[in-house]
């Protein structure tokens, strides 16, 4: 990737970082460093989804959750040293992230997000990167709703994501799936009720 404003760690330019290390202990260290890098990078760039090649799929663009590639370069490829991680190894890193709770496989959920995604095989999986946990987003949403005196009112997902009133909030332009996960947390706490359209798509939420 070519990006001046993100400071890659030195290991990003170490050629063997792009080969899965056969020594199990070394690989543990290697994969942990990759996971840390993915989380830091996505957090700074507000990237929500990485495809199976490590290419960011949706960014904080005005069209929420567009499936278009915002950047055709993979985070796992380094042109400067001409190395890239094999797709299979990327898959292993993703699997580890999912196990650790720092990512989730992208699968059809009841939002607009799933609209053009083909049925994915395990080898060809995109992930949603949780550079912040759904629980943290849930707390932020709740605080904002409380502070703005909107408890008990009905809010659309769009209002929470993209209206003028949330422009200064950290969850402005939050990815729809991540938002739904955060609302799930609130529902479990008994602090939210979601309103669904026909077909199960969530259209709004009442936070109490």
């Amino acid at each position, binding site marked *: 990737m070519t990006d001046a404003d993100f400071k890659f760690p030195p290991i990003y330019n*170490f050629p063997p970082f792009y080969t899965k290390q056969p*020594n199990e202990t070394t690989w543990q260290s290697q994969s942990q460093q990759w996971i840390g890098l993915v989380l830091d990078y996505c957090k700074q760039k507000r990237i929500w989804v990485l495809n199976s090649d490590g290419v960011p799929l949706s960014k904080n663009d005005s069209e929420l959750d567009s499936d278009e590639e915002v950047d055709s370069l993979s985070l796992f490829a380094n042109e400067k040293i001409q190395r890239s991680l094999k797709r299979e190894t990327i898959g292993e890193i993703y699997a580890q992230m999912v196990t650790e709770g720092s990512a989730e496989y992208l699968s059809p959920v009841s939002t607009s997000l799933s609209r053009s995604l083909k049925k994915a095989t395990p080898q060809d999986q995109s992930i949603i990167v949780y550079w912040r946990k759904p629980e943290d987003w849930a707390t932020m949403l709740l605080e904002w709703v409380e502070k703005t005196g909107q408890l008990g009112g009905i809010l659309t997902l769009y209002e929470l994501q993209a209206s003028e009133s949330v422009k200064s909030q950290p969850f402005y332009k939050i990815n729809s799936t991540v938002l739904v996960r955060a609302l799930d947390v609130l529902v479990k706490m008994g602090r939210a009720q979601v309103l669904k359209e026909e077909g199960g798509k969530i259209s709004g939420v009442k936070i109490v």
Partner: protein
Amino acid sequence: MTTPKSDTEQYKTLGNAILERQSAELQAQLAVFQSALTNFARDHGEQIKNNAQFKQQFIKLCQSIGVDPLSLSNYTPSGVKFTKTSSHDRDEYYNNLAVKVIETCRATRDANGGIISVDELISRLEDATYTPTAKDIEKAVADIKLLDGSFSIFPVKNKLFIKSIPEELNSDQQVIFETCGLMGYVSPGMLRDNYGWGRVRCRDVLEAMVRKGLLWVDEPGPKQEVLYWEPSWINMG
């Protein structure tokens, strides 16, 4: 929302929110206090050093709020101030440094198999106020070695390494480290051309070192020779 259960949950949420806010405030206060303490140490370094009781209290205070006394400039041995001070200060400095060396060797062992270059160690220990010298590190490692024989410092060409594992490098492995000193890596081809090693010897030596975590494998692509990198080059990129 009048059932007892949801009330309980609401109290819980509220309680959590208050706790979080308090903890954030405390964090901020602690940070302020830490920086005040650092400034205090800088302004009153002489008094702290010359009054044993004062110093003891000061170090206790540092430890309890998470300021590293070692990082405060008055404990730097190569600084002018240090040379005037007692041997007690000097011992304390090296003891602290030894602890940091052990910590860093442990923290990086998964990535480097237990051998770290002194340069890398220094770059990991230095901060805005303080940089240990290679001499300091050597002295600290000599102290550690008395307690734990597996620690030692050794030169490869003109680069110093510290090992924190019991095994010694054999002569073939030393040759690999030496050759890695040039470009960061070796390949079987390089070993064959420069040292006349046979295929089996190359493979056995390199694979054994990978198994010990001392080398990282680099497969640049199809039809290209596999390279073996020495991990201290991670920080030279």
